[in-house]
């Protein structure tokens, strides 16, 4: 049977989500950001939240997220996304507000805003892309960089004596009373992508039900910063990152 016949007679099992715009992303080939953008677009469409959702874009590689997902967005100052999201979700309780932040944004300059928003139990979703590096500025050490990992500012590898230890933000946030759902996922295999999608769905459902703050950490790759190919970075991530950042739910209050 020819491909054309299958296309004509068969059913569409997957197509590009409606909420993704036609713009071509500025991300490097193989970047995890693209997959997570697509999952957010799919989840918001499936949950019929396109008209109610408001995203808060970070500073970092995902600064142009508003060009790619066709919902309302606000661009926040570096690290202040949860503070901006707090205002929007309190002033317009009908909105479903989510932040999209990298590790430099959420775990470095925005640590205070993140922890206090989560501690207040704001009804927002925090999507945390953890790739252990500052991708946009050229691959410098981030707070989440692994010990021994080589970056532009730790050319001999990160050492605890000089640079301190990698910070596990999701574990910290899970100890706060304000969070209702904290999970750590990845998007390196089809199975992981499907799990990450159901985690995002649950997080948005919590925001709709006003249960408290939901945090979805996505352990991601930065193949340009890590100086590997996209496929190699996925293997490197599975081998090294998951040891420090194990996948799974850290907190789940029904």
């Amino acid at each position, binding site marked *: *049977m020819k*491909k054309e016949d*299958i*296309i004509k*007679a*068969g*059913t*569409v*099992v*997957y*197509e*590009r*989500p409606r909420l*993704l715009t036609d713009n*071509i*992303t500025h*991300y*490097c*080939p*193989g*970047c*995890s*950001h*693209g*997959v997570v953008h*697509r999952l957010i677009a799919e989840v918001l469409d499936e949950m019929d939240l396109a008209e109610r959702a408001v995203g808060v874009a970070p500073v970092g590689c995902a600064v142009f997220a508003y060009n790619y997902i066709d919902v309302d967005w606000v661009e926040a100052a570096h690290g202040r996304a949860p503070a901006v999201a707090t205002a929007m979700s309190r002033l317009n309780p009908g909105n479903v507000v989510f932040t999209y932040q990298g590790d430099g944004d959420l775990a470095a300059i925005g640590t205070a805003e993140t922890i206090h928003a989560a501690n207040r139990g704001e009804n927002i979703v925090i999507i945390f892309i953890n790739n252990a590096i500052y991708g946009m500025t050229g691959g410098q050490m981030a707070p989440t960089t692994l010990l021994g990992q080589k970056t532009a500012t730790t050319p001999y590898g990160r050492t605890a004596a000089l640079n301190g230890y990698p910070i596990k933000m999701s574990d910290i946030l899970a100890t706060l009373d304000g969070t209702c759902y904290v999970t750590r996922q990845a*998007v*390196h*295999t*089809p199975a992981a*992508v*499907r799990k990450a999608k159901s985690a995002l769905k649950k997080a948005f459902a919590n925001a709709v039900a006003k249960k408290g703050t939901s945090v979805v950490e996505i352990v991601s790759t930065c193949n340009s910063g890590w100086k590997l*190919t*996209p*496929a190699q970075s*996925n293997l490197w991530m599975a081998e090294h990152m998951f040891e420090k950042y194990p996948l799974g739910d850290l907190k789940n209050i029904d």
Partner: protein
Amino acid sequence: MAKIKGAVVIDINRCKGCDLCVVACPADVLELQPKEVNDRGYHYAYDKNPDACIGCASCAAVCPDGCFTVYRLVCDNN
């Protein structure tokens, strides 16, 4: 026994040639173009063995650029 056949349509000008779909495909359908490039200079993915496709949409799941449309057809094997 009914057999499942699949087909993928790739938006080649959106493709950045990251190779993740090729790695994810369980049926060895996809490959990057060895010589040809798309409008932006990337060696885009194409379906080398279209007959082997089972329409599992693994390629679509890992594609960072949403290039894939996947079709599936259940047909009688006779």
